């Protein structure tokens, strides 16, 4: 009856090799992104400054023309053009050109970086799958396994956005950096040999609850990256609008990011889209706790912090839905909420003990 014997050592080793290999490829992607930013810095675009200063400061109401293609029927020669106007009270600033800054060389490196990231993602996903096969269960039994799955999903979501032709390449460098960090922590401090689950974790709710939790975390993380960059970019735009002169590095880097309004919108959409799923995750967790421990909600530290995270994100959404708390204040709330998520993920497991402690951290 000893299931541990079934643990396939070989597959576990393959998984480890794949994870290390993906780290190597991510490192290459990291350097490619750096190259992209470096080459991109040679272009002097200065679109933001132009937009903010040309027509008399922030209140200038330029109406950028956006032609929206529809249906792809080219038969109609003179199609009506849609003119969009940003919401009242926001700066009309065009998005930056991206890390490559419109330079060919930068763009080449950027595309190399994305290709490498894709490759690393596939290798890493292979590592996660091998781990799952080696233990013959969902690969979410301990923190090492959470961490490797988490960063795989983050990169997966990012690549999915790219594949859907969303403008998210600006997130490439911060993302790859943190994925490397996450994998580094996972392999050095959190590593646990592959093994069976303790009985309390052995339930189909594990698949439902933990997979959605990891997915939500990944998306919240992307939102947080957007929020942080929004704060920088917003400061930069405000500075320009005041007629200030940002430093060379700041202007070179921040200039190339999307406009503050776009980043803010991105962060909001991403957070709002995943909030219902996070609600579901908590409810699924409560149902599982009801089966496993005989109570739906017991204010266990993990439960407390999931709840706090949920309320904090609800707070952020409320702030966005009402006047007066938009912009930076709402962004701080979003960061607070993500901070709660992060603490719930690492801090609670490591520093607080509760029923949610797993085999080997």
């Amino acid at each position: 009856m000893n299931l541990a014997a079934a643990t396939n050592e070989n597959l576990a080793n393959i998984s480890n090799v794949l994870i290390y290999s993906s780290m190597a490829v991510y490192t290459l992607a990291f350097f490619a992104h750096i190259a992209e930013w470096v080459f991109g810095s040679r272009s002097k675009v200065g679109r933001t400054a132009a937009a903010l200063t040309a027509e008399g400061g922030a209140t200038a109401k330029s109406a950028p023309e956006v032609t929206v293609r529809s249906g792809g029927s080219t038969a109609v020669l003179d199609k009506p053009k849609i003119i969009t106007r940003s919401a009242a009270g926001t700066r009309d600033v065009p998005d930056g050109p991206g890390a490559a800054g419109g330079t060919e060389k930068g763009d080449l490196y950027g595309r190399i970086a994305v290709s490498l990231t894709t490759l690393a993602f596939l290798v890493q996903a292979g590592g996660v799958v091998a781990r799952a096969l080696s233990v013959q269960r969902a690969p979410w039994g301990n923190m090492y396994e959470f961490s490797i799955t988490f960063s795989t999903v983050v990169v997966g979501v990012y690549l999915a956005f790219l594949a859907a032709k969303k403008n998210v390449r600006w997130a490439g460098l911060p993302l790859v950096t943190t994925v490397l960090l996450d994998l580094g922590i996972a392999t050095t401090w959190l590593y646990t040999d592959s093994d069976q689950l303790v009985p309390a974790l052995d339930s189909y709710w594990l698949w439902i609850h933990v997979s959605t939790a990891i997915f939500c975390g990944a998306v919240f993380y992307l939102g947080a990256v957007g929020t942080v960059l929004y704060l920088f970019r917003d400061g930069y735009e405000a500075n320009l609008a005041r007629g200030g002169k940002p430093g060379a590095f700041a202007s070179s880097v921040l200039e190339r990011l999307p406009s503050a309004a776009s980043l803010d919108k991105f962060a909001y959409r991403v957070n709002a889209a995943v909030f219902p799923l996070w609600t579901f995750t908590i409810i699924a967790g409560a149902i599982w706790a009801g089966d496993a421990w005989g109570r739906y909600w017991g204010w266990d530290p993990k439960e407390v912090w999931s709840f706090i995270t949920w309320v904090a994100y609800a707070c952020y959404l409320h702030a966005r839905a009402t006047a007066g708390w938009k912009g930076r204040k709402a962004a701080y709330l979003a960061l607070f909420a993500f901070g709660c998520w992060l603490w719930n993920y690492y801090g609670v497991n490591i520093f607080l003990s509760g029923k949610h402690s797993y085999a080997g951290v």
Partner: protein
Amino acid sequence: MSKTETTDEAAAAAETDEQELGEAGAQLSTAPQERAVPGSFGGVMQPGAAGRIAWAWRETTGWARWFWRQLTSMRVALILLFLLSLGAIPGSLVPQTGVDETKVDEFRRAHETLAPIYDDLGLFNVYSSVWFSAIYILLFVSLIGCIVPRTWQFVGQLRSRPPGAPGRLTRLPAYTTWRTETDPEQVREAALAMLKQRRFRSHIAGDAVAAEKGYLREAGNLIFHIALIVMLVSFATGQLFKSEGGKLIVEGGGFANTLTQYDDFKSGSLFDRDHDLAPFSFKLDKFVGTYERSGPQRGTPRTYEAHVTYAEGADGAEKKTKIEVNRPLEVDGSKVYLIGHGYAPVVTVRDGRGEEIFKGAVPLLPMDSNVTSSGAIKVMDGYRDKDGKKDQLGFQAFFVPTFAGAGKGTMLSQYPGLDFPVLALNAFHGSLGVNAGLPQNVYQLDKRKMKAFKDAQGADLKQRLLPGETMKLPGGAGSITFEKGVKEWATFQISQQPGNVPALVGAIAAIAGLAGSLFIQRRRIWVRAVRGEDGVTVVEMAGLGRSESSKLPEELADLAATLNSQAPTAPDPAEPVEGVRA
């Protein structure tokens, strides 16, 4: 402070914009408007008592109304939500009575000055403390105060039609225009038909078609907030009517669901102890536990099952099943959870005359993850010493399922499975103190009126027994045998909690409503068609969404392309026309 200036300017610009949009942007959501109610409510006080009373009345109702508006404002809702998240934090950092009482005791002992302060602040039971309750009760009052008017408003919106087109459509976030030879009436009819076909609520108002879609957003939002209340109420009632009790059962033993059979029992204040317990019974046939044999996880449980036979009702048919950690048994609306497990060595005690006076399994309490266990064996009745005098016997028992081996220097168990069971006993006689009528801990020996048996050297008698071995009490006082075949016991929690179904329904409604609220865009489209001075029709289309929509321009483009195919662009691109009325 040029920064504030720019934001002020921006706000001013936003304001003029809003005025220009006029009614068109109104009521795109039912979010309440923030209204400040300033100053003194009482107004002028008329002379005399009546005047004073009237003034006081105006003053109180004014303040009450003001307070109520504050409480139900979005700003206060936001603050209360934030406080709720902050308020929940201490409960995860300070040990909680409701979660782990022993940890609270440890904390009290370790922090003697801090503990009373924490007590006063309710930090040992944050989630039932006055201040935490105040936050969420205020939040829910605010929520109700917010939902009720919003619901009426929404019903009103459903019964009215989308507002007519604003004067200058160019001011809207998405706009398009073209000139066409088609008659304005025809354009409007075509636009109306197209919008209706796409399930916009639309009508012709003056020279323009007004259309709106996405009411489900508001409905979803209201459903979500109502579902939150449903969930809270069902949890609260569940707490009032729930019952929860524990029972330890040794293999072969049984349990019938009546109050007297519980080891411990808690229930909500509205639970009727005499009538609300569901009549069922079950028997523990066998407990099966297997543990990891090797590796760093050695000793971690792998299987953990209680095989039981149960019967529903007072005398229902018997059924066999197994209860596992994630799979409670559900009978008659009660759930039986497997909570813990331990060993119960079987012992036989004989008295001075060699007569068997006690034989049975004695459950011992586990002390560590390898199930090192301790407890007491108490022989109260029937014992007579060698002189035939009545006495009582007590043994302190210490049990390990897997002994390290003699001389290994440890009496602690090495593994949770039954590999090398050893029972160590200390023997006493005298008064067990059970006759005093005080409740007694069955796992502890009250030795105040007991004397230890002495061995040949005069030391306290103690012995380690292997299964089948017997310890003789000195001076022909009898013996105790550690029988082969150690039994296992399991503890069960039997709980009954009504209100789960409404809570679940509420939860599902909350998620569905939330998805509607966040994924559906509520938006308005206007199509204006008027004959220009040169006799050519000018078509203008504009869209307004509530927020953050990237889809709106795309949708407008799509609609424009469709309408354009029915009212083709006139071949006169002499000068772009921007807003006929501008």
